Structure formats: C-alpha cells, structure tokens
C-alpha cells in the first residue's frame, strides 16, 4: 500500500505511456516527466512568492498580502495578471535580439536543472552518469544570460549590475563546487541517484545522511551560503538590490519579461536547494526509520520547503552585503574552508569508524573555522575616517 503511494506517479506515467505507439514511447515518457516538472515547480514558485511576502511581513511585524483569496494565497494570480498585462517596454538603444533572448534562455536553463534531481524513488528525469557535473554546467549558462540581460539594456547601471552579478556568481561557484566534491568523494559517483542511494540506511535512529558528519555539516553550510549567493538572494542580492537604488541588470525589463526573470531566479533557487538536499540531506529518504511509510516525494518537498523557509528567514534577518565584503568572504573565508573540508572528508574516509574519527574530523573543521574567523575579523576596527584630498 505504501509502495503504491510511493510509486504512484511512476505507475501513472507507465500507464499513460502504455497508450502511446511503441516507437514514440520514450519521447512520450520524457514529455510527461517534463510537463510534470513544469507544472509542479511553477506552482511551487507561485506559492513561494506569496509565502515569502507573508513570511517577511510577519517577521517585520505586519501582515503580508491578505486581500486576494483566503489569507492572500491567490496573490500570485493577481501578480501574474499584472505582469502579463503590463506594457512591454524595450529601450530604443537596446539590442533587441539579446534583450529578448536573455530571460528566455535563463528560464530554459533554470528548468533544465531539474532533469537530474531525484524527486522520489525512481523519479528522476535523466539518470545521467555525470548528473552533478551537468547541474553545474547548466548553472554556469545562467551566468551568461545575466550578463546578456545587463549588456543588452545599453544602460551603464545595468551593465555594472550585470558585471557585479557575474563576478559574484563565478566567485561563489568555486566553494559551491568544492563543497559538492566532498560529497562526490564520499559517495564515489557523480550520479545524483547513486548519491541518494549511498545515504539510505539508518544506524539506530540516525540516518546516514552526509549532513550528520562533521565534514558534511560544514559542507552543507558552505553549500547553502554559496547557493544563496548563486541565486542572488539576500544577503547577497547586491545585483538586484541595486535596482532599488540605482538600477540592476533587469531594470529595462517590464511586464512579462520581468516576471520571467523572477521565475528564473526562483527556479534556480529551488534547483540549487534541491541539489543541496540530494547531496547532503539524503534526497527523498525519510529522516527516521519508522517514517519510511510516507511517500518519498513528500519527503523531498518537505525538505525543499524547509530550505525555502530558511532562505526567507535569512532574507528577513540579514542586511545586504557590500560587493567587497562579498568577494572577501568568498575568496578569503569560504575557499580555504572548502579546501580544508575536502581534506577532512578524506581523513574521515580513511580513519576507522568510532569516536576518534568524529573527534579528529570535528577538530579539523572547527579549529580552522574559529581561527580563520578571528584572523579575518581582526582588521575590523572602527577608525576615524581619513580623507585623502578634502583637507
């Protein structure tokens, strides 16, 4: 019974594919999965926009949107209608082809990230041998589209915002990939399905997720910080926060194209959280051994929801980081920590199981964290400001 509930969508897909002619069956099967991904994640995007606004509102001691529908949950429909009916303004000096293509390619790349995420047992669109590599490859396509958006607007502020966004994204890609490499090392494969399978199993009550190891926990924290920066979310939203002050890379976009950018950004956020869940939090596995009767896709979405709540919480808490603070953090703190994490993961693998392994690896993670933190914070003294030319 639980088996049927767990494999419900797989069974449904097989049944539907059975109706298609034999030659087209693989295409129909792929099409069904693609349609399912489009529908599910686009609705998740809609729900997240309203959840975020209400969540941020409550954090800020106010209601969020509460007029459209019960408790405001139909707000995305109103937003969708608004963005569809706004006038689509393209600046006269803008590069029309590139200006049009940028949001389209962004959304294309964002949707294709979901192809390698295992959403449930046997529920992955493409079980690629190099799944994680595919994921990072496609997310680097997203950086090019952001640059395209900023450059094609022929607006010096957009260009500046785009260049800053691209610099931020390529800087944070390095700790992101290094944090994932530790997991790949531990699992022995680049395939997301294999990585999830390696995290199945329970010792007593504790699951074998990688996050419950010292290097896994550090890797998870590094991964999530880098993921926040990759999706241009607060506190790393300098490229889009600038648009409140001067301009950002999508200033010259109005109406539906703006909505597409928004969609692409949020989809990227979900995809990278999905990858974090796959790599560190055990994918679709249940957290406790007696909860395995709950279908696997529900666990995946529960974990995804927890990640989204974390993102919203952090957005409501932290102020925006300045560009130099952001880059310093990536190169001076996160990169050394990621490299040390790599060493720790290796040490973990080669030590025998037991308390010694835990002590050594925890020390290897915590001590550099504290020392590096202290070392980097030493230069932070509030000094009297000295003007070079004004006196």
């Amino acid at each position: 019974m639980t088996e049927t509930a767990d494999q419900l969508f797989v069974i449904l897909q097989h049944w539907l594919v059975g109706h298609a002619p034999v030659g087209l069956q693989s295409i129909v099967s792929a099409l069904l999965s693609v349609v399912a991904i489009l529908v599910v994640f686009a609705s998740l995007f809609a729900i997240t926009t309203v959840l975020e606004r209400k969540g941020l509102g409550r954090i800020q001691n106010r209601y969020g949107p509460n007029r459209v529908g019960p408790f405001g949950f139909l707000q995305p429909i109103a937003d969708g209608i608004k963005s569809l009916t706004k006038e689509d303004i393209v600046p006269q000096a803008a590069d029309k082809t590139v200006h049009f293509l940028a949001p389209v390619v962004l959304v294309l790349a964002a949707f294709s990230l979901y192809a390698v995420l295992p959403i449930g047992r046997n529920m992955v669109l493409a079980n690629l041998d190099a799944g994680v590599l595919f994921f990072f490859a496609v997310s680097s396509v997203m950086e090019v589209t952001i640059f395209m958006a900023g450059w094609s607007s022929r607006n010096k502020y957009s260009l500046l915002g785009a260049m800053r966004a691209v610099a931020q994204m390529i800087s944070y890609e390095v700790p992101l990939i290094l944090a994932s490499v530790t997991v790949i090392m531990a699992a022995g494969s680049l395939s997301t399905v294999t990585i999830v399978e390696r995290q199945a199993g329970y010792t007593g009550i504790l699951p074998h997720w990688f996050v419950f190891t010292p290097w896994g926990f550090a890797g998870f924290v590094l991964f999530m910080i880098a993921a926040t920066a990759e999706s241009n979310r607060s506190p790393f939203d300098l490229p889009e926060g600038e648009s409140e002050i001067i301009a950002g890379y999508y200033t010259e976009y109005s109406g539906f194209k703006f909505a597409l950018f928004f969609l692409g950004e949020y989809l990227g956020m979900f995809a990278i959280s999905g990858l974090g869940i796959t790599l560190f939090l055990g994918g679709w596995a249940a957290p406790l051994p007696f909860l395995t009767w709950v279908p696997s896709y529900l666990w995946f979405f529960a974990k995804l929801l927890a990640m989204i709540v974390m993102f919203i919480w952090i957005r409501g808490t932290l102020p925006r980081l300045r560009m130099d603070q952001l880059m310093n953090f990536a190169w001076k703190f996160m990169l050394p920590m990621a490299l040390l994490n790599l060493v720790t993961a290796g040490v973990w693998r080669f030590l025998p199981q037991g308390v010694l392994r835990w002590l050594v690896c925890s020390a290897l993670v915590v001590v550099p964290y504290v020392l590096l933190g202290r070392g980097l914070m030493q230069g932070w003294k509030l000094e009297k400001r000295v003007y070079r030319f004004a006196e």
Partner: protein
Amino acid sequence: MLGEGIAKGLVETARNFFGSYLSKDRLTTVQYPEERLPQIEATRDFPFLVYDGDDWQAGMRCVGCQICEKECPPKCIYIEKSTDKKPDAVGKLQFYPAVFNIDISVCMSCQICVEVCPFEAIKMDTEFELSTDDRFGGLLWDKARLSKSNAYYGKIHPTDAARSDAQLAEEKAKVEAKAKAAAEAKANPTSPSPSQPGSGGSPIQ
C-alpha cells in the same frame, strides 16, 4: 566568534515571526477599509460652508466678502457676489454669494480661508474619501455641495464649534442691543440721549 551575530539575529526574527501570531499587539496594521484610525479633533481636509438652521440658502453665514478668495494661496475659491441682500448670522442685511466654487483638487488644506473669515462662515471638514471618476467636474464643488449645517460642524469639531457659536452669539447680542437702543431712541426723541457724557465732574466754583 564568527556567525554569532547572525545566530542572534535569526533568533530575534524568529521571535518576531511567532510573536506576531501569539500576541495581538505586535501587529499594529489597521486593516483599511474595514477599520479606520480615529481622527483627532483638529483634523482638516477640505473646506465647507456653514449654515444655521435648516434652510441652507437662508441660513448661510457667508456674505460674499471675498477675503478667502483673495487669501487662498492656490486660488482655488471662486466667488460671485449676489445683487440682493439677506440677513446674515447676526441679523444684519448682507450680500451673499451667488456662486461659490472650490476646486478641491487644487485645495491644499492650509486652512488660511478659515483663519481669515470674519464671519465664521467657512470651516474645515474631516472627510477624505472623496475619489470620483468624473475627471472634469467631479472635484469642482459648488455652493450646494459645500454647505453643511452647524449641527454637523458641532459634531466634527466640538470645541471649535462651541467657540464659534459663542462668538456669533456675542456679536448677535451686540447687534441686538444696538438695534434696541436705536429703536428706543427713535421712540423717545426728547429724552437725553444716553450717549451724552454725564456731568460727573466737579464744576468749577
């Protein structure tokens, strides 16, 4: 330690989030238009013309002196004086405005017209939900639209209305006293007029 401040901040925002559900005084939002914030007594939005009694045309206090029209900074008042007279608030025969228009889309609620009016005829209203879809004349108000009774004035600005009524009553009393004295003087022409100074001083002996 690195990250300590962030953790403290996260705890604070979590407390805000859950507190907003548990304690009602965290959310100070007023859900307009179901609820409204109470207005203070000295609220001023747009002017209105005060009339005494029930007939707005007979009881209108405005005498068409055009002082408010001249003093209005954005010049949103337009007055045309009448040619006949009618008794005003204190009983004297005065002109009255045949046309009195205020363009409230121009009016900036500065209350100068109220301050300069010598007849307590124009006061500030407290209504602000005045949107209209008539682009061309919907916000150009004429005499009829602008007239509101003294009872209404007493309801929206009680202390001001009390002061204004007291002032008008005093002026009315003075006018009536003068009129009574004039009537008595006309009735008894030979009695020494009380306005002659009495021989109170000591005569030179």
